[in-house]
């Protein structure tokens, strides 16, 4: 059962990777990377159960958090081209 689930998720990961490679715009790629990260979280959780040592959920937890940080960093970079926003400018366009 776990094996079937893991295989299914693997196939889906390949699909998401194809989108990340093809993606015409940058946003497509970001979205694919994000979806890929979510699937990796699921895969790690299933793998933990598959190997009979399910106390390794910490890794999946870390993935879920770090993936979010990575996505936000990429978006921020695209939007402002700079990591240090907001600078001390009052009229910065501030809708992300």
């Amino acid at each position, binding site marked *: 059962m776990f094996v079937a689930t893991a295989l299914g998720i693997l196939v889906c990961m390949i699909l998401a990777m194809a989108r990340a490679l093809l993606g015409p715009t940058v*946003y497509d790629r970001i979205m694919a990377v994000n979806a890929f990260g979510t699937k990796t979280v699921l895969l790690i959780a299933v793998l933990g159960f598959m190997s009979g040592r399910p106390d390794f959920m910490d890794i999946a937890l870390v993935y879920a958090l770090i993936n979010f940080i990575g996505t936000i960093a990429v978006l921020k970079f695209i939007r402002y081209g700079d990591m240090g926003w907001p600078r001390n400018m009052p009229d910065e366009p501030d809708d*992300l």
Partner: protein
Amino acid sequence: MSWLIDLLSGLALLGGVFFVGVGSVGLLRMPDFYTRMHAAGITDTLGAGLILLGLMFQGGWTLITAKLLLILIFLWMTSPTASHALVKAALADPDNPQPLLHKESPPSNS
């Protein structure tokens, strides 16, 4: 009792894989960015939820289930936020093609 738990978790895992698969196919096949975003949402909510639910059935009332619940909460908190930020960034970008809705329907009705 054991077979019931196995059955439930098997069903949940199957459903989860189905939804993840639908989301992935949608991610690959949908015509433009915004519709793809819609497909990716399925993976994040229903797919992840069902798979983690199936694993929770197997975990029983232990620390593992608590951690799975935490993963689920984190996923449900972070992925809509990321999607929100992503769509806002995409909409604000003039180089990016705008959604089809704006081109086809007159802007008067909304």
